[in-house]
Structure formats: structure tokens, C-alpha cells
């Protein structure tokens, strides 16, 4: 026999009859479940009756719990009968007692190769094909709109150039200055031990011009502008602004993305050159303060280490990076169908993928150029 005082519900098991007393509601369900479970634990019978005669109140959760126990016991081979009590309780048993529909969980019996194949096909159709389709679209409209200036929004190109490029000058400059500083500082000790102090100039100039300048600039811009492009387009999708543009006969790619592409392509090379200068400036500070190289010697040596080819490669790289950042941001923005929560998700994805693609492209171009 199991009983309880504190709870509204109490239950007693006598001669294969589980008598329930009081109220069986969701507020006390945890405790009631425990009590019923405990009472039933002592039951060895194959026939059992839930007697609700003394139950004063039951809600939908209480009814569901009773049927839950019934099904559990039936699965163990126990015949369970729910014997109703008051009219209201019987009505609720009738209303809430019907078995809800089963969820089709679906059995996964596909083989390894089938899974692998469908996975590859999914990735290709869902991501790669879509990405290249959008990239082709953006490329086509970016080039064609160069010759059809009257169709573009007035002032939007300047606006985007300021947002993507000009507003990033300070942060990109500061970061590359620090990186140049640290790069030179780390190398100074090694070069000093070989008496090759003067090569700090070559090291800083080559590293900044051909690698660090374009790469750091692209990473900063991907973080700043790539995320903002993805978030802007995703928000436009969620709020049906892109649909509105289409129904007004405007192509969202031309209207929204092309000015960003033009702005990024124009400003990123300049931003990269500024980054190069700032990075070299950082190297100069360390050369003067740590390696006793005068500014004049540094500049003279810089002219020797300085190759036009490095600047040109840096600019080409920055153009490729600008293209990758805008296309990736736009692609993830357009992937959102509905739901504001996805805006944050695609923004993160856009930054991560853009930075990854920039690094991959950088290594490929590194292999091609050198």
C-alpha cells in the first residue's frame, strides 16, 4: 500500500485496483507520477484497474499521464482498465484520452555509399552550385553595369566605397601597424644574433607587401563588411524586401550587390596599400629602436627590397579577396528563406567561409605568383 499526505493526489493499490484520490493535475504531476510508479512497482498482477471513483479533479496532463501508464503496463503484458468516476472526469477521459498520432521517426536503412553519395549531391546542389550561380550572376551584372551607369542608383557606389573602404582605414591601418611591429620585433632578435640587422627591412617589406598586407586587410574587411553584407541581405529576405524589389521589376543582385561589389573592388586595393605602408611603418619603428638602423638607411634599403611586382601581386590579391568577400556575404544572405534567427547564423557563416576562402585563394595565388 502506498499513500501520501502532502500531495493533492494520493493512490492506494489494493487487490489489483489502484485507487486515486484528490486532484491529478500538471502542477503535482511529478510527485503523482512518482507515487503511482512506486505503487505499481509492488504490483505483480496481470490485470489492473485504475479506479478514479475518488478523484475530484483531473486535467489534460493528468489524463495523458494515466494513458501513459496504461500503455507502459500494456507493453509489459498487463491488462489495464481505467474505471471512471464523476461525470466531469469521464468527459475529460473521453476528450483527452484519444491516442495522439504517432510521429513518423523514419527508419534510416540507407547504406554507407548511398549516404555518402546523397551527402555529396546535397552539398553540391545546396552550396556549391548555388554559390557559383550567384557568383556568375554578380560578375555578369557588375561588368555590364559598368557600361550602363544610368541604371544604377545614384550615389550608392560612393556610399558603399565609404562604408567598405574608407571607414575601415583606421582599423586596418592600426592592425597592420601592430602586426608589422610584432613581426619585426620577433625577427629582430634572430637577425641580431647573425649580425644581419639590415635584413629586417627586406623581411618587413616583402612580408607586408606580398602577404600580410593583402591578407590582413581582407580578413578585417571580411569581418566588417562581409558580415554586414550577409546581415543586410538576410534581413531584406526576411522582411520580403527582395520580393518587393522583384515585383517592382528590379533585380536584387543589381540593386543591392553590384554597388557593394564596385565599392569593394575599388577600395580594397587602396586599403591594402595603406595596410602595407602601416605595416612597414611598424617595422621601421622596431628597426630604429631595437636594431639601431636609422630611418634614412631603412628607406634606402627599402628601395632595394621594394619590387613593383610585389605591389602588383598585392593589388591583384586584394581584388580577388574583395570579390570573394562580397560574393560570400551575398550568398549567405540570400540563403535565408524565413526566420529572423537565421540572420545571425548566416552572418557568422559568411564571415567564417569568407575568411577560409580568402586564405585558400591566397595560398593558390602564392603558388601561382612565386
Amino acid at each position, binding site marked *: 500500500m502506498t499513500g501520501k499526505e502532502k500531495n493533492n493526489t494520493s493512490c492506494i493499490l489494493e487487490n489489483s485496483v489502484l485507487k486515486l484520490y484528490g486532484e491529478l493535475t500538471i502542477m503535482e504531476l511529478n510527485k503523482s507520477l512518482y507515487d503511482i510508479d512506486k505503487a505499481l512497482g509492488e504490483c505483480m498482477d496481470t490485470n489492473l484497474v485504475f479506479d478514479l471513483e475518488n478523484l475530484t479533479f483531473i*486535467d*489534460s496532463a493528468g489524463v*495523458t499521464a494515466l494513458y501513459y501508464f496504461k500503455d507502459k503496463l500494456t507493453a509489459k503484458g498487463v491488462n489495464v482498465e481505467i474505471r471512471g468516476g464523476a461525470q466531469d472526469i469521464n468527459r475529460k477521459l473521453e476528450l483527452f484520452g484519444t491516442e495522439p*498520432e504517432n510521429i513518423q521517426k523514419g527508419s534510416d536503412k540507407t547504406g554507407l555509399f548511398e549516404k555518402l553519395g546523397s551527402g555529396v549531391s546535397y552539398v553540391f546542389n545546396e552550396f556549391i552550385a548555388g554559390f557559383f550561380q550567384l557568383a556568375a550572376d554578380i560578375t555578369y551584372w557588375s561588368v555590364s553595369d559598368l557600361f550602363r551607369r544610368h541604371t544604377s542608383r545614384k550615389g550608392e557606389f560612393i556610399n558603399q566605397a565609404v562604408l567598405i573602404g574608407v571607414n575601415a582605414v583606421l582599423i586596418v591601418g592600426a592592425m597592420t601597424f601592430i602586426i608589422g611591429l610584432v613581426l619585426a620585433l620577433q625577427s629582430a632578435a634572430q637577425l641580431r644574433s647573425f649580425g644581419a640587422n639590415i635584413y629586417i627591412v627586406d623581411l618587413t617589406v616583402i612580408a607586408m607587401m606580398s602577404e600580410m598586407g593583402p591578407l590582413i586587410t581582407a580578413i578585417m574587411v571580411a569581418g566588417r563588411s562581409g558580415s554586414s553584407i550577409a546581415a543586410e541581405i538576410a534581413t531584406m529576405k526576411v522582411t520580403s524586401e527582395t520580393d518587393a524589389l522583384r515585383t517592382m521589376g528590379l533585380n536584387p543582385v543589381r540593386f543591392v550587390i553590384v554597388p557593394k561589389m564596385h565599392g569593394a573592388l575599388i577600395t580594397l586595393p587602396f586599403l591594402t596599400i595603406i595596410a602595407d605602408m602601416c605595416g612597414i611603418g611598424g617595422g621601421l619603428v622596431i628597426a630604429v629602436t631595437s636594431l639601431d638602423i636609422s630611418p634614412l638607411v631603412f628607406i634606402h634599403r627599402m628601395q632595394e627590397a621594394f619590387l613593383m611586382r610585389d605591389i602588383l601581386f598585392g593589388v591583384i590579391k586584394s581584388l580577388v579577396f574583395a570579390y570573394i568577400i562580397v560574393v560570400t556575404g551575398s550568398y549567405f544572405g540570400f540563403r535565408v528563406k*524565413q526566420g529572423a534567427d537565421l540572420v545571425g547564423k548566416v552572418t557568422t557563416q559568411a564571415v567564417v567561409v569568407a575568411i577560409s576562402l580568402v586564405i585558400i585563394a591566397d595560398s593558390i595565388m602564392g603558388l601561382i605568383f612565386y
Partner: protein
Amino acid sequence: MKTDSVIKVEKLTAILDDKIILSDVSFKAYSGDVTAILGSSGSGKTVLLKHLLGLYPGEGNAVSVMGLNPSQLDEGQQKHFYTRLGVFYQNGALLNSLTVGENVALPLHQHTDLPPDLIERLVKLKLRLVNLQGSYNMFPSSLSGGMLKRAALARAIIMDPPLLFCDEPGSGLDPVSLASLDNLILNLQKLLGMTVIMITHEVSSIFRVADRIIFIDQGKVIFEGTLPEALKSQNKALMEFFRKGRGD
């Protein structure tokens, strides 16, 4: 005459940004009734609802919901208070990152330690009650406006609350969907024995579901009574509200 009031508001004044939104608002809502709080846009209905839900800090004891002042509850009391009421928001307020089933199960996971398979049964029961069988694994973004409202209603009643607040339930619905949602609320109210407080400005809804009317105009309660009394009232603002709402 009814005496068992579930909600009692006495001389509630609400000021937001130095602007008086509610002024000396007093009314009662009784157990088992559907009480409609009416008023045009900007009349202070939503601010009143937020006071009833304890979402705005309130001074004194102007508001009593189920015998408690919702703005002056400690954490434990607040948790208990919110398990005893359901709120059905006008835009559904479902979490888009969760499936419909997960959304509806959320209060059960938060407030109970029930086994997962029992929670699933409870959720499916509530989805069946709102005619959303088969939507357990769907995401809110794939539901229509009417389905979204019904899923939100299922979440609001998952704890079998004795008190259900509906904030503009019919907004954005076509007349047919609105009528079926009203009937659904009414059926559930009878089925689960709930007291319903409905904030609305849909006159057709009021005729379908309301037992009592509280009419707010410019932050003041200018009518409180039953629906037949409201229809006989000579109050100009109320008459105008009904006349325009019916499209006369």
C-alpha cells in the same frame, strides 16, 4: 452577481516617458468568463496587459491576479505564477530555431521533470486540440499565419493554465481564420475550464466569444459590464467603436 474575481485592478495609473498611458483604471474579471478588453490602437490595452503579467514594475497593490500582485513577486513566486497562466501573443512569439513540438514543450521542460515520452504525448495532445496534428516536427517558418497562431495557442495552454491571456489573437487573420480561431479559443476555454482575458479590437471576435467587456479609451475604463449591457450602453465612444467595427 459574480463575486469570484480572478483579476482585480484598482486605480492603476501607468506613466511611460512622462506620458500618462493609463489613468485610474479599475475593473474585475471573473472566473470562467471570457473578458474582452477593448479599445482602439493607442488606448493603453497592451500596457494594461503588461501590468497584468507583471512585465512592468508597479507600485502599490493596484493589480491583483489570482490573488497576487504580479509586479511584486520574488523569483520563486514568479515562477509559480507564470506556470498558472498562459499567454498567447499576437505574433505567436514562437522561437524560430525550435520545431513546433519543441516550442510547445518548452514550458514543460522548464517547469516539470516529466519523462520525455510523456512530454511528447502532452505536446501531441495539445497540438491535436488546436488541430495541428502532424506539425510536431515542422519549424514555425513553414507554418501559415493561422497555423502559427494555433501553435502559439497550444504552447499557451500546455500547462493547463486556469488563466489565459490573449493579446490581439486575431490580428493579421482573414475573417474565416479569425472565426475559427475564436471558436477554438472558446472550445478550449470550456474544455480546460479556463478564464480568458482577451485584448482585442476585433468587434466580430467580441460578439463571438466575450462574456464581459471592459472598454478603454484614452487610458481610462469607460465601460465595464456584460456584452448585452455594452450593446445597450449609450456611451458615445463605445457606440462608435461597435458601429465602426461592424462596418456600419
